[in-house]
């Protein structure tokens, strides 16, 4: 398949860009941050997202969704990255929706997926436990109790954790931390007894939470997929999330870059436009090349996910690793080339730097994914 957008995909991009740039420029995020908005995103905008078919973008049509693929999800994520719009799209529409449609039984799908599609249900995946993304190190315990399980442990960096109506929890029903066997996913109601949620205000002013589970009782129907065999489902869902975050980082990098090049064409020092200085021209050109290569790698990963999630791991690792290093470079060059202005809160560029840092940690940083590629290639 060609690595260019189809006509339908270009139309999707244009409509996403139109809505997001109009209703949620960077000032939207700034406003939510400054007002310490309790929700952390705009419910009104989320309804617009649902009306346009974005909330259920990955949900099959039989459950009220648009039945589109990861390429399309990536297109929306890229536009989100351009304005840093805080949105449940990643946690609910990409990650949770994928987990439910790929791992859910008939009852689970028909209960949750239509509500995701119409925008009435927010969901999220609770995976990380330590400071770094290490899915196989999952150690939150799920012990059989009667007809169900009792969950005990803690999760961190749960995106939208304090507003979610449904939390998909990765837990250990067997094996030891580090093993693939013994992982199980559970659908947990965050209002259940024993669940305590602390909203963590993050550097990027996007939603995240720490969640503690103290002997939380769930019944057998809450298991998503197979007991002890959750690793494969989790791999696929995480890879879809990684592809989406990589796309967000491409959008973010591209936007920072465009703003920076514009600045180089307008800012004068020493009686010249600073964009005339070769020292800056070459750095800008190198960054451009980096972004274009990362964009292609990300499209490749999203296409690979649409072709066969189980075979996309290496392409996804390449994309997320590249997205991490590229976005890091883009935001650093962005601040540096904007000089003192880049350091001010009044200027938007710092918001991009902060979000890039969080995206880098989400679902594994560049080092993590570079390591995954080395292992996959057997050295």
């Amino acid at each position, binding site marked *: 398949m*060609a*690595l*260019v957008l189809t006509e339908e995909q270009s139309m999707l991009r244009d409509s996403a860009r139109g809505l997001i740039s109009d209703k949620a420029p960077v000032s939207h995020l700034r406003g939510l941050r400054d007002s310490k908005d309790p929700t952390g995103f705009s419910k009104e905008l989320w309804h617009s997202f649902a009306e346009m078919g974005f909330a259920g973008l990955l949900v099959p049509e039989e459950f009220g969704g648009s039945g589109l693929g990861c390429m399309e999800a990536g297109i929306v994520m890229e536009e989100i990255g351009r304005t840093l719009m805080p949105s449940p799209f990643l946690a609910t529409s990409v990650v949770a929706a994928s987990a439910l449609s790929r791992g859910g039984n008939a009852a689970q799908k028909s209960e949750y997926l239509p509500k995701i599609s119409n925008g009435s249900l927010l969901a999220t995946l609770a995976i990380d436990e330590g400071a770094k993304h290490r899915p196989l190190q999952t150690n939150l315990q799920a012990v059989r109790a009667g007809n169900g399980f009792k969950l005990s442990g803690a999760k961190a960096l749960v995106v939208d954790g304090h507003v979610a109506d449904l939390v998909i929890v990765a837990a250990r029903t067997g094996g030891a931390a580090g093993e693939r066997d013994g992982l199980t996913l559970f659908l947990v109601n965050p209002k259940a007894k024993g669940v305590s949620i602390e909203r963590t205000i993050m550097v990027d002013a996007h939603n995240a939470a720490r969640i503690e589970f103290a002997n939380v009782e769930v019944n057998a129907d809450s298991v998503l997929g197979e007991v002890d065999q959750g690793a494969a489902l989790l791999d696929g869902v995480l890879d879809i999330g990684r592809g989406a975050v990589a796309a967000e980082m491409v959008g973010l990098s591209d936007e920072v870059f465009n703003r920076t*090049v514009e600045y*180089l*064409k307008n800012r004068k020092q020493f009686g*010249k*436009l600073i*964009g*005339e200085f*070769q020292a800056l*021209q*070459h750095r*800008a*050109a*190198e960054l*451009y*090349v980096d972004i*274009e*290569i*990362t*964009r*292609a*790698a990300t*499209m*490749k990963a999203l296409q690979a996910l649409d072709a066969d999630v189980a075979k996309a791991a*290496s*392409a996804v*690792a*390449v*994309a997320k*690793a*590249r997205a991490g290093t590229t976005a890091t470079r883009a935001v650093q060059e962005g601040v540096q080339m904007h000089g003192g202005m880049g350091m001010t809160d009044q200027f938007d560029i710092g918001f991009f730097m902060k979000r890039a840092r969080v995206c880098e940690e989400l679902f594994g940083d560049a080092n993590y*994914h*570079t*390591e995954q*590629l*080395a292992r996959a*290639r*057997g*050295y």
Partner: protein
Amino acid sequence: MSESETADLEQFRSETRAWLEANCPPEMRKPATSDTDVFWGGRNAKFSSEPQRIWFEHMRDKGWTVPDWPREYGGGGLSAAEHKVLRSEMAKMGARPPLSSFGIWMLGPALLKYGNEAQKKEHLPKIAAGLIRWCQGYSEPNAGSDLASLQTRAESDGDDFVITGSKIWTSYANYADWIFCLVRTDPAAKKHDGISFILFDMTSKGVTTKPILLISGYSPFCETFFDGVRVPKSHVVGTVNRGWDVAKYLLQHERAMISGMGERGVGRPLGQIAADSVGSDAQGKLDDAMLRGQIASFDVDEAALAACAERAVDLAKAGQAHPAFSSAMKYYGTELNKRRYEILMSAGGVDALEWESERSRQGARPRAWLRTKANSIEGGTSEVMLGIVAKRILDLPGA
């Protein structure tokens, strides 16, 4: 793409695969091990092996030395989509190109765009059939990165031009049959406006070549001297004094070729080559953790570049490519290839330092390592490429 087009393409894929299976000798399904193992064609061409001959002839007869050129000029007449399928099927089986040629990579595309009908009919079929080997007369001792300041002059004399001057870094000039050459036809005009693009036979009276010994110990390049070489004016491609347009167009193809020169995705993975010399632990991890990290970072960037190269072709096909994008690819591809060989040298350690032994295949690795240093100089330096990106793509001021 419509369903019937997709179905046609899938049929083409299965037919192509079957044909390649039947016609590509097993020996030709791995990368060439040295330059002498590459078939360049030409009047004095010799095959280094029987499988090389068979493979070349089968591909030539099908028009697949130049799969996307029109059939009337000896090509295969494939569409862009079919060409992509052929390339991917060849890559899957590791089939090497049957014919390497500056005629295919550089002159052909320029002739297809700027040549007149007589020139196309005369030269393209001979390139496709590997009958004539071409070299490129661009750089001069005082015109390197600043190519447009070239001084080799062509003076009008009746129906001919008389060419005097010298070229440098002329790849394989000592083996070439013909040259495509930039000459100054109007010394009074501004430097870009007095250049013409002209073709002539290297056996013409007044042409001499002298190989240049490089740090690799090999001489892939020559100095080339022209002393009153007489060339018919009909050999000018495009308009007299507008040769810079042809030169630039050809350079885009040259840059695309050089950016693809790295051994991407062929042969054994770098990590396994390194394991041969540095060893691995019980889990199969390279024993040198820092080297392992460097290789993994390289692999990430290499895979990403491969995706970008694929996308560049797709964008061109869709009419969405920026004409200067080949400069971006050339910059990154050549820097990456240099990185690859730094890693290979580090991985090889002492073993990679031998220069003349049989064990080292006459120092194949260190010589190749040194050769890669030219990648970011030839066809436009990395600095020139970044300047082109800054000015033509980013539109930064102060051209």
